[in-house]
């Protein structure tokens, strides 16, 4: 129950931080190429034992609430649902190699940090590629989309990791 309340607060806070702070960060002339998204950290840390239908529904609502603020109509909702759908493939792999409590929030402290970085960067890369592809709605400028995906993924992963080191505590064993 406590975990549910914490996650609801995290949901609202992450959307607010995304919309009112991260979206306003100025990268000088790289503004077109870097658009960091930290709110997807919510999907990464969501406990793995939650019903997978519920996970998809949460991802959809999360994406839609960001769409509401960023005037992107449904692009974020689509990308969030995609990574929520693909998430079990990555977490299952981690679960076989690590023993972690699947009812806890899946933060960087729970598993081997290299594995966790691989997990969030590959899902972020998929997220950004799908997001920018939908925004452009064409393959004409594929090189531009790929460059944008790589740069945004790097910056987002750094932001998300720093955030998790700051706000998640190590679980007591």
């Amino acid at each position, binding site marked *: 129950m406590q975990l549910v309340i914490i996650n609801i607060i995290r949901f609202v806070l992450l959307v607010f931080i995304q919309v*009112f702070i991260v*979206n306003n960060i100025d990268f000088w002339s790289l*503004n*077109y190429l870097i*658009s960091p998204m930290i709110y997807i950290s919510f999907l990464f840390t969501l406990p793995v034992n939650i019903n*997978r*239908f519920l996970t*998809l*529904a949460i991802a*959809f609502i999360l*994406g*839609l609430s960001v*769409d*509401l*603020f*960023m*005037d*992107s*109509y*449904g*692009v974020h*909702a*689509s990308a969030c*649902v*995609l990574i929520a*759908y693909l998430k079990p493939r990555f977490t299952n792999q981690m679960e076989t190699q690590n023993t972690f409590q699947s009812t806890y929030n899946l933060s960087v402290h729970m598993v081997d940090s290299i594995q966790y970085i691989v997990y969030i960067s590959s899902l972020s890369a998929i997220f950004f590629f799908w997001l920018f592809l*939908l*925004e*452009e*709605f064409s393959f004409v*400028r594929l090189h531009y989309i790929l460059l944008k995906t790589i740069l945004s993924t790097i910056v987002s992963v750094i932001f998300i990791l720093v955030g998790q080191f700051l706000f998640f505590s190590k679980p007591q064993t």
Partner: protein
Amino acid sequence: MKNLIAFIRSIRFLLFFIFLQLLAFIFISNGKGFQTSSIISSSNAMSGWLYERNQAVIDYFHLAEQNKLLLEENTRLQSEIIENYRKGGAEDIIYNDTIFELKYKYFPAKVIKNSVSKRFNIITLNVGRKQGIEREMGVINSQGVVGFVKDVSQNYCTVMPLMNENVRLTAKSQKQNLYGNLLWESDDDFNQVTVKKVPTYIDLIKGDTMVSTSQESIFPEGKPIGRVLNISKEQGSNYKTIQLETTVDFYNLSHVMVVKNMFKEEIDSLNIQ
């Protein structure tokens, strides 16, 4: 039959995924269009309210700049008032007020959200249906053309600025009555727009101003859009492409005016026929 149900049960997660994706795609296709309106936009009551609170804080950082702009505009208006002009002889003037009919009505508005870094930028204003705002009204400020209204809700509206790849307007030279298509090309930087399909015999040099036309019956004629940055000839055609630097500073946008063309409906109804 039993097998079919078992099969559907086994792929029900995939089906749910596809269902949510389709839902998202419906939202996207509703919003992306140039003419259509969307429910998922920041003209929505909740996000509009939050952006307004957010802007209330940010406003303090731009006070000095905004004061300067207001002063400039006041000075310009001051120089235009009737007391500044000498009256002609009484015999020259025909007094008949009713020959003038109001064509453009202006509503003051404040920008509460302004995105600058995307290819499809959207601005949100703090006026909506209650204040008499409708779709496809023009938005200008003292410096020139900003954009036009896309979606309207009860208290807020979203504006498609010139800095959006979906924008299709016309612009003309201030000196001659020659038109071109105004759009924001992918290679345009911020505060730059491109005018295409301008006849080659147009007489323009760097620094000249291009202004709005009343072709779409959105803007009053002659509001400045941008100054010419460079001119190039389109290959294999009789047209020129002109790159403009917008007169409006989109980085620093706070107070704008929404323009209503009182005759828009009448003109549009003629165009349909």
